[in-house]
């Protein structure tokens, strides 16, 4: 798998960035986002407080995940653990199928 970045934005769009690809779509059109968000939220560090509202959630490849909450204490970063590979791959596949072919 080539390097990728996935942003899930709180305002309602999800974006995938790969080499020569930068594609956004409405999160409501994707079925694989919410399971991924739920799984990452379940991995949050114990000191994270506040609700699960977020400004953006980002996956840098499989091993760096960044949850930017609506405030500092509701934000966290997990590095070096590729625990969500299957869910990430499912979202990538779903988004890739939506990318317009030139």
């Amino acid at each position, binding site marked *: 798998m080539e*390097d990728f*970045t996935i*942003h899930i*934005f709180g*305002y309602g*769009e999800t*974006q995938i*960035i790969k*080499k*020569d690809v*930068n594609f*956004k779509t409405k999160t409501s059109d994707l079925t694989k986002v919410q399971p991924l968000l739920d799984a990452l939220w379940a991995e949050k560090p114990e000191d994270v407080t506040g609700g699960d509202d977020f*400004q*953006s959630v*980002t996956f*840098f490849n499989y091993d*760096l995940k*960044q949850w*930017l909450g*609506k405030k*500092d204490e509701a*934000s966290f*970063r997990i*590095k070096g653990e590729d625990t969500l590979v299957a869910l990430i791959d499912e979202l990538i596949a779903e988004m890739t199928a939506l990318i317009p072919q030139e």
Partner: protein
Amino acid sequence: MAIIPSTQKFHTVSAEVETVNRGSKTANSRREAFTMQDIIDTVPVPPSSPGLFEEGAGGATSTQRVGSGTASGGYSTISGGSSNAASGNDSTVGGGASNTASSYGTSVSGGSNNTASGQYSVVGGGENNTASGGNAVISGGYNNTASGSFYGGSTVSGGLRNTASADYATIGGGSINNASQLWSTIGGGNSNEASASRATIGGGFDNTASGISSTIGGGRTNNTGGQDATIGGGEGNTANGGNSTIGGGENNTASGDRATVSGGGNNTASGGYNSTIGGGRSNIASGFDSFVGGGQYNVASGYFASTISGGNFNTASGYYSTIGGGASNTASSDYSSILGGSANSTSTFANSHIVGTNITSDRINCTFVNNLSIKSIPTSASGLPSGSVWNNGGVLNIV
């Protein structure tokens, strides 16, 4: 000290011959005569020494001067010390103890338990050092190794338990450093690893330069995986992108080609190329040519050239979108901008621009403000281009 020419001859006489009173009183008073025993008594020789200027085990071509050991190589020399071995042809051990010069043209000057086993390798001193690569050099220190191929040229200048294991690899000093690929270099520090060709680490602790021609100046636990990547210092930074750069800070990542993170913490510049983060914390520049100046929790992800100058929790995800600052602003449409304020969104409307707070764009090619106060408004339409506004006696007019 006078050197007696090698062709000079000596006359000796038997013990009974008078050698003192053979001239005038004055001449006799200036004359002294010595025996061979006097010479032996004058020059101290350790009891265990095999002797002074003794022929080595290598035969007439080897020389063992003072001390114990074996000069067994052709034209090999041991000048002193104890338990040294010069077994390679043309090898030399200057002194010290238990040193070994075992290959052609090798040299150990001193110290103890040092080994020069690579052809033409040299150990200057120190202890337990091994120069096993061809032309390898260890100047001193303890437990250092300079290995490599037959042509080698690896160098460890000093320090403790350093290993330069590839041809032309160099370690200046420090401890437990490892330069393992061609032309890799570590200046010093502790537990650093230069594991790609031409990789360089200046110092610091636990740094890894694994990208070809990558460089880490110092700091700790930094990693340059990208080719020609550079990290100046800081801690826990990763420069994976080709030609990527991190100046310092902590836990920053520059994974895009030519990506730059100047400093701060937990920042990620991952854009396809040329993404830049000046500083701040937990900022992301993931689009091509994207830029975040500072602040925290900002994301510039637009396809090209999205920009966030600062502030907190801002998102610029539109093509060429821009946010000046403020908080919780979203420039999600192409060519849109938000000057500052908070909780603004350009939504899906391209070329929409917001100056204010809590505004959401609702049409394209439009600028949105909360309120507008125009200062020094013209009082005449004279000379104004179409679309300009002017104050017509307290009434706003448009040309």
